[in-house]
């Protein structure tokens, strides 16, 4: 149903000038209050796809609709209140304090030339708590580890109070505990605020069962989409990751994924 989708991609085509990481004919609908995982092998176009959804890249063909309105028709500032994006890594070289980075996520909501107010501060602190990073508030981001930096950037995306959150491998630098915390936070925001999440991930094992839906990309095309237990099948994963030895098994409501010797 088109009316129930928050963000919708229609027949997206894209290719970089060197031809790499091309996207061909991907259509996908992101309803509110769902966690969607985008999986696929390296170079399958996952990051390109999520950057297209974030409006960082412009599709060569096809369109992206936010609330049934083309993404480029949205004024950037209003769009930024609806969609937040968290990259794989950030390269900040200036020693900003973590709290200031999170506060900058309030930009689309703050007056154009003013400073953030008390409410913005409260939201920023709440976002740091939700990301499990309150203890980092006064630290300089340049002194943080990769995982800690990611938590601060996640808090910043949450402070944007978006309706759609796009995450590009957010868990890559996180340890087990923080991965679990990230997933719980996202599930909580889905349930309480109706947040729609699209997350690129390589972590099929730990996070697989939490997603409502999985989308598998292969060579820039949408290979399959469905519930995690439908996607996490040996034959399908073997095809997506181009490895015949991928095995899966159901244990209770969880799916185990491993590679056979």
């Amino acid at each position: 149903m088109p009316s129930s989708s928050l963000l919708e991609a229609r027949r997206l085509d894209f290719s970089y000038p060197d031809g790499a990481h091309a996207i061909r004919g991907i259509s996908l609908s992101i309803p509110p209050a769902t966690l969607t995982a985008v999986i696929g092998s390296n170079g399958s176009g996952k990051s390109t796809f999520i950057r297209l959804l974030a409006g960082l890249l412009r599709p060569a063909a096809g369109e992206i609709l936010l609330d049934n309105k083309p993404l480029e028709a949205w004024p950037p500032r209003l769009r930024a209140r609806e969609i937040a994006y968290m990259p794989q890594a950030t390269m900040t070289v200036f020693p900003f304090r973590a709290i200031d980075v999170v506060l900058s996520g309030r930009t689309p909501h703050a007056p154009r030339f003013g400073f953030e107010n008390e409410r913005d501060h409260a939201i920023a602190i709440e976002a740091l708590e939700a990301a499990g990073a309150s203890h980092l508030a006064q630290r300089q981001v340049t002194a943080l580890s990769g995982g800690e930096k990611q938590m601060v950037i996640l808090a910043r995306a949450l402070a944007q109070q978006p309706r759609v959150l796009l995450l590009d491998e957010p868990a890559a630098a996180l340890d087990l505990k923080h991965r679990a915390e990230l997933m719980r936070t996202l599930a909580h925001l889905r349930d309480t605020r109706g947040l729609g999440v699209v997350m690129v991930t390589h972590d099929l094992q730990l996070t697989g069962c939490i997603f409502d839906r999985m989308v598998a990309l292969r060579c820039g095309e949408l290979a399959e989409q469905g519930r995690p237990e439908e996607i996490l099948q040996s034959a399908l994963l073997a095809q997506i990751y181009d490895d015949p030895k991928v095995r899966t098994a159901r244990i209770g409501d969880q799916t185990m994924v491993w590679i056979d010797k």
Partner: protein
Amino acid sequence: MKATLIKAMAILTLVLAVSTAAALLIGSQKIDFARLLSDPFSRTLFFRLRLPRVLMGLTIGASLAVTGATLQALFRNPLADPYTLGISGGGALGASVAIALGWGARVAGVPLVFLASFAGAILAASLVIAIARTGAVVLPGALLLSGVVVNLVSLAAVMTIEYVAAPNNSLEILRWIVGSLDVIGIAPVGYMLVLLVPSWLALLALSRQLNLLAIDEDTAATLGVNVRRVETVVHTLCSLVVGVTVAMGGSIGFVGLIVPHAVRLMFGEDLRVVLPGSLLLGAAFLVLADALGRSVLPSGELPVGAITGLLGGPAFLWLLRRRRQYAAM
């Protein structure tokens, strides 16, 4: 953050007032301030030479520092400034070509030298960025290296032009290469301010977007910043500001590098504080450096660029050493 801005503005305005007063008082010639209006010698010395020179210093210092802070944020490169990106050199080359050709004319009231200098600055900036850009990414190390080389080549070209045009006037060459604030009368400062004040204000108006860019380019875009437009506006404005200042004061180095860092150390990283703070501290710093240059030798004076170079070069190296991540770029 608002409190930080108010505190920074108060402290730096005071610093600026004290520096300006000191710069007006200090000089190789003693001015009798009690008879400033009645004594023609004192009056000429003060109103035709000392005051214009201090105003020139304030204007150029503010300009170089605010462009330095802007360029550092835009390129996420703490070592960027008009000098290290070759913009100063390009501007100096444009201006010296115009002067060698005897272009004293004005176009719509703007001295042609300013236009030539602006053209040189924007060409140098575009060249350096084009060399350092691969795809959507500007490589920080390549940016600085190409900037420094463009600066060296430009200044060598300036030296060649000056040598051919006025073989006996090595002082004039030195002025372009090192930079100096010599000026007669107040009118040139007036021309500069007409172009500079709107440019400063436009840069200050971008401080929030620059703040987001200083953190990260991709997320700045998803937070509503039109990155390409900010880049274009910043390139143009910085080239204009640097071009105009270089046309008058020559290629004064490192002001845009050390002043923003000093402001950051005192008041934190937020560009909404760093940009106006750099404007004030840059003005104060350059008039003090010039006052030092005018008084440090028993006879004669050092060009202000020699002072900023002697202070700024070591500061650059200190920054490189202190923050390991800069060296990795």
